[in-house]
């Protein structure tokens, strides 16, 4: 067992770190305030391969791996969690579905532009009445000749404000439970008639990320855009969410480390009672505690990523990493605001944004409660 990154991963980490510090950090506050993602920044990240990290060069990807992808997620999320989710939804949710279940033709046609830097992807599963429980799904697709006709509405579709391609899930058989009647489709958000993308949903955190309601009204989807077998959508969605949880765990690690770094920097300069606050043992001990938890969360995340890279079962490992890391992100960001006192609470400093951003990591791609269901389900308790 080796806990050290190899040379290639170290250099990738250096790239992600430099890019995040130079290109993303200066925009993070403004993007949060305006609730708009900077599309020039998006294009720049596409250009340097940030949207195709773990995918094969054969289809235009970077030929790197999930571990490197977690390094990217951590580094960008250190300065801006919204950038983290933008990359994660594209990579883990949209692209992984096509990569794992697409035909050769679908991979060439739809995966290639997503991972070679040309197009951005999103993922439509959640509905108003179908969150953790997919049984409430109401979006349907009905076969009509060589096409499927899609009707329904998906909420919280991250990236949908600017994405080109969406992997969307609809019921193709309403006579069976949703877990057996769901089918995945690849749709063009910008080109197919009948698709409407709402304004951004106003949120507490990750406000720069695009997150909208996508409505499908008699959208005609050619049959060759069915992803995987008809009726196997639930399995595809759950597989994607397993991948996604590694990304969210890494995002949470990044938010936590970013906030702690800010608190450390502030505590070196801020003087109270005649001394920098970092010289007080209470501050030092709290910081030691926070760093220990972040390191533990990081190692759990890397373990899940390495398991995925080795094609081992990683679902419960990803769930544990996300459960723990998201909790750590919330604890550390709350600490960072507290350690920086009144200034931590001010929008001039980034830690209040980080605290708002941290909350979502306990909710999306499966709540912490769902993570416990996944983990306990793997423990042979019954």
């Amino acid at each position, binding site marked *: 067992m080796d806990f050290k990154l190899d*040379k*290639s991963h170290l*250099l990738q980490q250096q*790239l992600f770190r430099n890019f995040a510090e130079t290109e993303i950090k200066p925009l993070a506050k403004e993007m949060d305030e305006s609730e708009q993602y900077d599309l020039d920044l998006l294009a720049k990240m596409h250009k*340097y391969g940030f949207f195709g990290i773990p995918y094969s*060069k054969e289809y235009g990807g970077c*030929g790197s791996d999930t571990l*490197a992808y977690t390094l990217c997620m951590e580094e960008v999320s250190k300065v801006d969690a919204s950038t983290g989710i933008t990359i994660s939804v594209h990579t883990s949710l949209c692209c992984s579905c096509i990569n794992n279940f697409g035909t050769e033709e679908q991979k060439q046609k739809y995966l290639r532009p997503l991972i070679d830097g040309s197009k951005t992807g999103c993922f439509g599963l959640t509905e108003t009445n179908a969150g953790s429980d997919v049984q409430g799904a109401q979006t349907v697709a009905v076969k009509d000749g060589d096409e499927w006709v899609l009707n329904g509405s998906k909420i919280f579709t991250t990236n949908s404000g600017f994405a080109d391609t969406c992997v969307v899930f609809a019921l193709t058989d309403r006579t069976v439970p949703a877990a057996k009647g769901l089918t995945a489709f690849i749709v063009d958000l910008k080109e197919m008639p009948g698709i409407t993308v709402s304004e951004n949903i106003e949120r507490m955190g990750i406000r720069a990320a695009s997150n909208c309601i996508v409505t499908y009204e008699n959208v005609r989807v050619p049959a060759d855009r069915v992803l995987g077998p008809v009726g196997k959508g639930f399995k595809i969605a759950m597989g994607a969410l397993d991948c996604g949880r590694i990304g969210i765990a890494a995002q949470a690690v990044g938010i936590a480390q970013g906030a702690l770094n800010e608190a450390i920097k502030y505590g070196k300069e801020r003087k109270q009672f005649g001394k920098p606050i970092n010289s007080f043992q209470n501050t030092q001990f709290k910081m030691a505690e926070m760093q220990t938890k972040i390191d533990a969360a990081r190692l759990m995340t890397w373990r899940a990523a390495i398991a995925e890279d080795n094609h081992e079962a990683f679902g419960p490992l990803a769930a544990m990493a996300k459960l723990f890391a998201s909790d750590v992100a919330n604890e550390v960001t709350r600490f960072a605001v507290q350690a920086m006192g009144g200034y931590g609470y001010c929008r001039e400093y980034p830690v209040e944004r980080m605290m708002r951003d941290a909350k979502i990591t306990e909710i999306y791609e499966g709540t912490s409660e769902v993570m416990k269901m996944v983990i306990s389900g793997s423990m042979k308790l019954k």
Partner: protein
Amino acid sequence: MKIVVCIKQVPDTAEVRLDPKTGTLIRDGVPSIINHDDKAGLEAALQLREKVGGTVTVVCMGPPQADVALREALAMGADDAYLLSAREFGGSDTYATATIIAAGLKKIGFDLVITGRQAIDGDTAQVGPQIAEQLKIPQVSYAEELDVEGDHVIVKRQYEDQAHMLKVQMPCLVTALSELTEPRYMHVGGIVDAYNKDVTVWGFDDLKDSLNPEWIGLKGSPTNVFQSFGKQPKAAGTVLAGLSADEAVAAIMEKLIERHII
């Protein structure tokens, strides 16, 4: 066109400190980077390749750990990389360094050699011009613009108050300023490729046909560093324009008195 870019791995001076007792650099824990001017030169080379075709080769003289600087250059898009590394090369001053790099360049072959103007750790600005002298090829230093026209390069050479446009026949050497161009980032896939490639490592034996052992290393170095010290940054000057002779005298006198110089 075969472009060879010479790069140096240097400590990131933004994070480097001097030991107050010994006056030497404290390198522990300081990250190493590709020297800024060299990186601008590499970017210019990559852009020229995109425009006129050809290849970009990177060369670095340094210890084995300089390998990562060459991998970074490969990940930015360079085609191949050479590390000139040997115990015999240690302790070389700028003259001996240029002798070694020139020997490497002779063996690699080139149409255009690009070096940075100077390294941020030594600030001598001597190695590039000395390489050109050793290779007996024309050189243009302080390039802020660089283009190729047939078998000539067109260089805008920067001076403090003016610039020269020069047209030089290749083979030649150009030393690049950081202002020449903004370097691109590495590509993620480029890093993966960079570690799947070989960096050619040449030691003394590989270059001995054109290297006199008396001209390299500590004993081949005419200069020796006997002390290093930090410099106070020079304040920006003030330009007073459009004054008559009398007004200029008055303005200078006023400043001298203000500073208690007279």
